[in-house]
């Protein structure tokens, strides 16, 4: 496909809550993120649940690919939304809630990675690029292992910028805002990330 216009971000539709007050859920589903955040600011923590339902999967995706560990990603989801709840006063409706939550999530990821570097013996198995056993390793696992090995060679900023663009479909300005860097720096991080990934992956896939 020569056109190659990637949109990314496949889960932006509002999920149906699978339990709780159905009548109220319908009302919340029609609410914008901004309106829900306003309610949380006014003390209605129930509205926060719907923000968690809408955004926890994308935070998990980012966190898992940043850290390579499912349990770390679960912890980052928790930390991200705890921080978001405490800082909800600082959220301004001018920017998208998803950009704001990515910014918090990216910071949580970086904190986690920094802490991990202080105790390097606890590297999660998913980031250790081991040679795939020929028989029992499924293709999916092989892709995961190869890719996580390649992602691990990127700097934190390159990896975050790449993941936000490639998997979450964020615009360059959103990525800059989420990572607290300029748009030029965001773009250059993506360029460097793609170059490093190609160097490692071309011919292996």
């Amino acid at each position, binding site marked *: 496909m020569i056109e190659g*216009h990637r949109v990314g971000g496949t889960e932006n539709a509002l999920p149906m809550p699978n339990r709780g007050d159905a009548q109220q859920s319908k009302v919340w589903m029609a609410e914008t993120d901004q309106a829900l955040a306003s309610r949380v600011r006014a*003390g209605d*923590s129930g509205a926060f649940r719907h923000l*968690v*339902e809408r955004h926890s999967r994308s935070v998990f*995706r980012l966190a898992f*690919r940043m850290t390579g560990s499912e349990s770390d990603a679960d912890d980052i989801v928790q930390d991200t939304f705890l921080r978001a709840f405490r800082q909800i006063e600082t959220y301004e409706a001018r920017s998208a809630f998803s950009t704001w939550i990515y910014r918090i999530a990216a910071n949580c990821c970086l904190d986690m990675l920094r802490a991990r570097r202080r105790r390097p013996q606890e590297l999660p198995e998913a980031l250790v690029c081991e040679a795939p056993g020929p028989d029992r390793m499924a293709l999916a696992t092989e*892709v995961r292992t190869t890719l996580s090995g390649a992602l691990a060679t990127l700097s934190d900023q390159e990896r975050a910028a790449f993941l936000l663009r490639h998997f979450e479909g964020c615009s360059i300005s959103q990525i800059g805002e989420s990572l607290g860097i300029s748009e030029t720096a965001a773009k250059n991080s*993506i360029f460097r990330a793609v170059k490093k990934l190609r160097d490692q992956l071309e011919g292996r*896939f």
Partner: protein
Amino acid sequence: MTGPHLTEERLVEIYYGMEPVPDHVAGCPDCAGRLRKLETVLDRVTEDPLPLRPNLADEAWSRLEPRLPRPRRQPLLWPRAAIAAALAAMLTLVFFAGRRSATPTPDAAIDLRQQVLLLALGQHFERSRILLTEVAHEQDPATWSGYRRVAAGLLESNRLYRQTAAEAGDAMFNPLLDDLERTLLELAHAPDSEWLGLQRRIREEALLFRMRIVETRLASNSDLEGGL
């Protein structure tokens, strides 16, 4: 063939849809081949499997909910009946405190009445300030009718507080209560067409700032004589 060969950066921009595919690609087998190679690698990256559990959001919420700090204040959208009941309770307290002023310790009774009123006023200012802050920044017209209802409820309370404060001989809040009442009245009845102007006025006027100052002073129970 049009123009020079594409740089690596340009190919990445094209892949991610930041730039349109230039005509050059159609006429240059070299660049078309490089773009295809890039697509092959990056498309494979997309296939990376994720341990995305179907009920991840529910699990996250169950773990998160007990860890959330308790809200510091009541939900803004109180039903009108709840506001009325809270106010009635407050007025009853003030009334009994007033009757106790016939006892031999009038100063203590007046102190109590003052304190009850000040506490209730502090909460009223806080609730009003939260409402006005939200209104000032709310961009979704679907929420406006809800805010009108809340404003109408707070307007009712505001009138009673003003009256009570006047009866208690407490005129120091009157300027602020008067200005707040005017804004709440406007807000309760503003048609959509006047909403933007109202939002701007709330942002520009000093009302929010004045309420915050009074709240801080009421909370710290410090000197209220400095004027409002």
